[in-house]
């Protein structure tokens, strides 16, 4: 009767959640523990696999030998993204894209960003630069200026709608309300926008995005598309919400809002972790554990003046060199050395140089992942998350 989980996952980011989804799909009893909401909430919601070059999957071959992608392999990477796309489609938030072709997404600065999988609502890759583009923005909405976009396109215009609220979350909430949506659609119809594309900041509902998107598209008689905004980013929140909902539906138990308080070991095995709950520490026991606590930004890794530590199990962390070598002089240059810091793992995603037998590691906490340099964030998290799940699936 004991509440032993087959696998306990620490960290509810893209990698932890995808590991949970893969394990639950195979009938494993899984718990996910997370101190807070993950980085994907403030992302664009687009899945970067490897942003440079046309064919991201092929491009992986040219990454340094120690990059975690090599531990997964091309086929398994493609499979993990299939699994992800399947989950998001089931949840009514389909993603489009092809692992062999990067596609463009228009940003709020009017430039394009290269990525691999995009929410259906942002699809714009077949845009042809002669086409007319019409941006609809919202009165007093912060951090979204249509002029940035129209100034970069010769054939472009914009209109401004007053939704009565000025925040991204407030506007998104309004779009989930039918009379507002209908009023908006008839306003757009009254504008007489020339033939071409209609773009809007990504505020088409927080949850009901698919419905809202299709209704506006139908009302405008053409496909519209969303442009990702600064945080709070609705597409990032939808991505997180969609995955979390899928986990709940698959019977995964979530423990949210508190970090790890202590770790119980028996010999070379981790028996349980306890949470820093209000009051008594809640104990969660598992046969295997997956560490997916993210990099510095989420607190999985912590840097002091001269060293880097892993915050839950105190695993040995790889350090690229002395502090003087951690940063480039040019802040915006891709590839600060410190980005290589993290946990080194063997081919089955077990941390090297430790005695612990039932621990696996995935996501941006992995050494040599260099997420910012290669722009491979969510893609690497998904691929290594599913791979770590498969690796430990055999054990439990």
């Amino acid at each position, binding site marked *: *009767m*004991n*509440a032993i989980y087959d696998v306990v996952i620490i960290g509810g980011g893209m990698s932890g959640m995808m590991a949970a989804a893969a394990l639950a799909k195979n009938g494993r009893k899984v*718990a996910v523990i997370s*101190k*807070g*909401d*993950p*980085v994907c*909430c*403030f992302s664009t919601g687009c899945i970067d696999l490897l942003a440079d070059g046309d064919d991201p999957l092929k491009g992986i071959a040219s990454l340094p030998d120690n990059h975690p992608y090599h531990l997964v392999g091309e086929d398994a990477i493609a499979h993990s993204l299939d699994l992800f796309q399947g989950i998001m489609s089931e949840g009514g938030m389909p993603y489009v894209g092809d692992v062999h072709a990067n596609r463009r997404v228009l940003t709020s600065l009017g430039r394009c960003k290269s990525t691999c999988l995009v929410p259906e609502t942002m699809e714009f890759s077949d845009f042809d630069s002669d086409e007319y583009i019409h941006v609809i923005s919202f009165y007093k909405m912060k951090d979204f200026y249509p002029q940035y976009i129209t100034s970069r396109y010769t054939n472009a215009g914009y209109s401004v709608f007053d939704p*009565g*609220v*000025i*925040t991204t*979350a*407030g506007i998104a*909430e309004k779009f*989930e309300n039918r009379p507002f949506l209908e009023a908006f659609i008839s306003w757009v119809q009254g504008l007489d926008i020339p033939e071409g594309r209609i773009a809007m900041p990504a505020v088409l509902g927080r*949850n009901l995005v698919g419905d809202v998107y299709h209704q506006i598209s139908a009302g405008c008689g053409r496909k519209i598309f969303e442009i990702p905004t600064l*945080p*709070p980013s609705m597409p990032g*929140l939808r991505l997180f*919400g969609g995955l979390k909902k899928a986990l*709940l*539906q698959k*019977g995964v*138990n*979530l*423990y*949210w*809002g*508190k*970090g790890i308080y202590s770790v119980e070991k028996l010999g070379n095995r981790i028996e349980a972790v306890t*949470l*820093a*709950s*209000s*009051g*008594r520490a*809640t104990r*969660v026991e598992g046969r295997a554990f997956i560490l997916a606590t993210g990099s510095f930004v*989420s*607190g999985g890794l912590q840097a002091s003046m001269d060293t880097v530590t892993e915050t839950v199990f105190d695993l040995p962390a790889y350090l690229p060199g002395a502090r003087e070598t951690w940063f480039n002089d040019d802040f915006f240059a891709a590839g600060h050395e410190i980005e290589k810091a993290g946990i080194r793992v063997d081919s089955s995603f077990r941390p090297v140089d430790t005695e612990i037998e039932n621990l696996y590691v995935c996501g941006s906490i992995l050494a040599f992942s260099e997420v910012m340099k290669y722009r491979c964030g969510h893609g690497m998290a998904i691929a290594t998350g599913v791979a770590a799940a498969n690796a430990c699936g055999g054990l439990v």
Partner: protein
Amino acid sequence: MGFDFQHCIRCTVCVANCPVFKVDPAFPGPKQSGPDAERFRSDDEASIDRWVRLCSQCKRCDVACPYSVHPAQIILREQTRYGEGHFRPLPYRLFANTYWLGALGSLIAPVINILTPRTFVKRVLNVFGISTSIPFPQYRFHSMNRSWRWKGRRRSRKKVVFFYGCFINYNRPDIGRGVRDLLASLGVRVVIPRQVCCGLPALGNGDMETARKFARKNARILAGYIDKGYEVVYTCTSCGLSLTQDYPGILGVPDGKKISENTYNLHEYILELMEEGYIEPTFEPLHRKIAYHIPCHLRALGIGYPAARLFEKIPGLEVHILEDNCCGLAGSYGFKKKHGETSAKLGSDAARAIKAIGPDIMMSDCGACKMQLGYFSGIPALDPSEILRQSLKVTDSGT
């Protein structure tokens, strides 16, 4: 706490999770009301942030924040500071004291239950700033205070003191008696001493003094039992949060830490009895489809969803967990007229999510959620312990 606000990286995750911010443009949200404004506050200066009162203390921001800033805690502190320095309108004073309100309501239950639905009485309530957009709770004459005060063998190895809370006490004592009978049927000795409101409503209404008074009184009673080998069990997740988080925290109650460390959620306690092998209950099948609305304060406890884990063991039960919505009532928040609109919007959003499942029943651990969402969804709202009793065949013993 203290300097947690310095850890804020302004990621806006809390803002995206704040139900009030979503629907009330007057509220600047947890980031601005919490860590941002905190930099300009000083104990030497009076509190002037009137809008901190718009926060319902659902604590969703605390759960979401990846950097342990705890915006809701920062706001709570400011709410009490603001309350100390300003006149508190009638509803704030009234609801700070839901305990006395409840005691009175229960005493004159037959009269008050007939009166409150009347239009005339509603108008009077509105004038005093009390919202009547959802029916006022019905008060029960046979409150917990008037029920049997113990059950189960005195020499039982497992002994608990049951903290039932105001909602059960005055409005649904049947749930409380059910919990008592359920625990007793599992071989647990249950005692139900006289107790007062946990203090959370007073705290949320900016009345630190009343909150402390209540908390001290309960602490004395509960700590006495803990010293005798009892553990504290609660079902109301807001009382639970208050006992485990506020007693040792902002209320600084003597023995707060002891209480916090010896207090269990009912379902968590039953799971632990099973895990220890103390009981091996047989769960009878229940063929029902349930929408389980997770109360915000269950999330804030950070103990996972123990009732959901128990329900996995009941054959035939189909449970759909809904954890993304706040019911909007937030204790007494939604009963204040000035929050009525916010509360109703949130309530109907949450009810829409429930209805989308097409459940036979909806369920929630929290009395306020059950009241609000039962009303907005029109679906019968049950407490998890009621379902458990059905599956474990624990019959109702009356008083």
